[in-house]
């Protein structure tokens, strides 16, 4: 029988061997937690990949989305960042300008590039180089409550903002804690909720000359439209206390006639409110027929300081195979980013997703500008003042545009 000391010595030796192996081909990956299914999905992918590639050890860090940018900032400042990470594609420009993200072009084969739908790959390409691969994509459309529409005597989802105003008022008139239009006025994407209307009126976030579009006539019209909806009781009261999830909750409870949000709400409704009669329609058009939706992608990037780039790429190649893509996209309720993935029966037979996919030609992505988050923050603040009635529409937007122009360097 071995003595206790022999056992300890043995354990020590095997531990040493283990750490040596770990440092040879370890790929650390930071991923955002989109839902409770994210962690298990990546654990499964890790197992499958490691079984096929015995020399490589994959280590995942699953981080809540809200803390992701904070974690990456501190990791990068301390030089302890992972090899791969998911980031919001709108942050990519900062990562590229500061030399944090590595270009992937030397690894990308034409076959690999051909797997992607161009619309989704384009936002990750800067100065002709590909710095990220779109791992998650979504767009926005209008959800409407069919039962409330019926009660209010409206048969079709509104096609223009004028019709939307009309319908919203009719639904709010039903009373009993039911409101026509769910307006988001708090936290992340408060600005985006405003852009839906601004784009329909023909506005742009950044105009052709590189200045902010917040002081354009379209922006002013859109803000006046929302303010009028609030004042006439066509939205839920106290919009500045409702973030996206709060408005979605009201919709799931059947208290709201219409709202704009991402495809994942369909999945949530199926799980949490299966009896809700709802439909998905395009975002209404403005007076000149302009229309727009917000497209968002998250990218997975390779860090410039990674010691195991070849191994990391191998894992990316695995992750972007059709089988693993379909699993991920179905789990999270996103839009498929690859052509073969999109042909999967899961997506072809989904009526809601078809509406989202049909809007993609008009989708606008967050503009590629350094300091985008700061502009988003200032825009949201200006909108909150307007919604609360603390600031006059034109003056508030003009002041916000001036601040945004400072950030834009104009």
């Amino acid at each position, binding site marked *: 029988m071995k003595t206790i000391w022999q056992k300890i010595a043995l354990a020590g030796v095997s531990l040493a061997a283990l750490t040596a192996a770990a440092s040879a081909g370890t790929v650390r990956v930071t991923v955002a937690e989109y839902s409770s299914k994210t962690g298990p999905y990546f654990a499964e992918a890790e197992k499958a990949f490691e079984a096929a590639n015995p020399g490589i050890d994959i280590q995942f860090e699953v981080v809540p989305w809200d803390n992701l940018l904070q974690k990456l900032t501190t990791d990068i400042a301390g030089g302890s960042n992972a090899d791969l990470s998911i980031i919001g594609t709108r942050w990519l420009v900062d990562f590229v300008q500061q030399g944090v993200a590595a270009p992937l072009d030397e690894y990308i084969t034409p076959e690999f590039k051909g797997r992607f739908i161009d619309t989704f790959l384009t936002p990750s390409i800067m100065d002709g180089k590909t710095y990220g691969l779109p791992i998650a994509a979504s767009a926005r459309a209008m959800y409407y409550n069919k039962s409330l529409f019926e009660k209010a005597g409206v048969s079709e989802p509104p096609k223009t903002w004028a019709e939307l105003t009309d319908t919203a008022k009719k639904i709010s008139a039903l009373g009993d804690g039911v409101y026509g239009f769910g307006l988001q006025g708090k936290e992340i994407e408060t600005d985006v909720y405003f852009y839906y209307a601004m784009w329909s009126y023909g506005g742009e976030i950044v105009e052709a000359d590189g200045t902010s579009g917040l002081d354009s006539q379209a922006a002013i019209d859109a803000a006046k439209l929302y303010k009028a909806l609030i004042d006439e009781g066509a939205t839920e009261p106290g919009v500045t206390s409702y973030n996206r999830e709060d408005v979605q909750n009201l919709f799931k409870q059947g208290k709201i006639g219409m709202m704009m949000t991402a495809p994942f709400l369909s999945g949530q409704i199926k799980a949490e409110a299966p009896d809700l009669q709802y439909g998905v329609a395009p975002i209404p058009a403005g007076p000149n027929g302009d229309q727009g939706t917000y497209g968002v992608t998250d990218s997975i990037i390779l860090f410039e300081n990674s010691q195991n780039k070849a191994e990391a790429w191998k894992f990316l190649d695995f992750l972007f195979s059709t089988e693993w893509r379909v699993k991920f996209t179905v789990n999270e309720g996103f839009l498929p980013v690859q052509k073969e993935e999109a042909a999967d029966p899961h997506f072809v037979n989904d009526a809601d997703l078809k509406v989202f996919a049909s809007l993609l030609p008009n989708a606008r992505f967050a503009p590629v500008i350094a300091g985008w988050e700061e502009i988003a923050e200032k825009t949201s*603040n200006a909108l909150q003042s307007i919604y609360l009635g603390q600031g006059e529409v034109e003056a508030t937007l003009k002041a916000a545009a001036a601040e945004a122009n400072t950030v834009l360097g104009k």
Partner: protein
Amino acid sequence: MRRRNPLPYLLILPSFLLAAAVIIWPVYDLVQIASNDVNRFGQLRGFNDFANFTALFADPNFLAAVGRTALWTVAVVAGAILVSVPVALILNSDFYGRDIARVIVMLPWAVSLTMTAIVWRWALNGESGMLNSGLRALGLIDTNIQWLASASTAFPMEIAIGILVTIPFTTTIFLGGLSSIPGDLYEAASLEGASGWQQFREITLPLLRPFLNIAIVLNTIYVFNSFPIIWVMTQGGPANSTDILVTHLYKLGFRIGQLGQASAVSLVMFALLLFFTIVYVRLAMREERAHQGA
């Protein structure tokens, strides 16, 4: 003059070194970031003539946050102490079920601050919140109050919750103080015919004085730096109208990516707290010495 014994200093040295490692080194790091041009990821790009501080003091949101932090700290600390003194007096007196009452008062302490704030955020929801449905059921309101929609209702509610979560700690300090007051003082006083109020003013309050000072200093430090309540409930919004310094700092650093300015804010906070603590402790000590002299 007596020669000073070096032994106490030697004994203090290890903990001083530890404190230096955990306090002085990060502060040094902060000074460096605050006085340099810094990129989004904390990499230094050269000294910039204190531009971070100049930008800060030109920012109306920062100045507003300073004022609001003062209001927040004073209101929460004063409120917590005003409530905690009677609570401690009651819990110190002998009554049936006192132990259970003590546990109940201490309970909020056992729940993490973030959880408390999340629960309140739900409770204050305009359409489906507990508070509105409670008030409606009691017939006190007809239409829902949108508690978190504007600062005029959100900030007072945040202060109220701040007071609520500060009570257990403060009460504990006062209970410790009360148990150190000998009972025969009260006996003697009532033999002399002192009323309950007189006993409180002339015996309890003066003898609680050192504990009151501790409660004020420690609570001020905690509350001044308290992040979760305001962040969870309003994120300093709408339109920065409930921002205090820590939430302003967080937005600057991790949302907007101005790490230089964010470090400058935290240095200003450090200086403010240090100043308050030194001034207060000196005043309190002088007063104590004056009492002893009398």
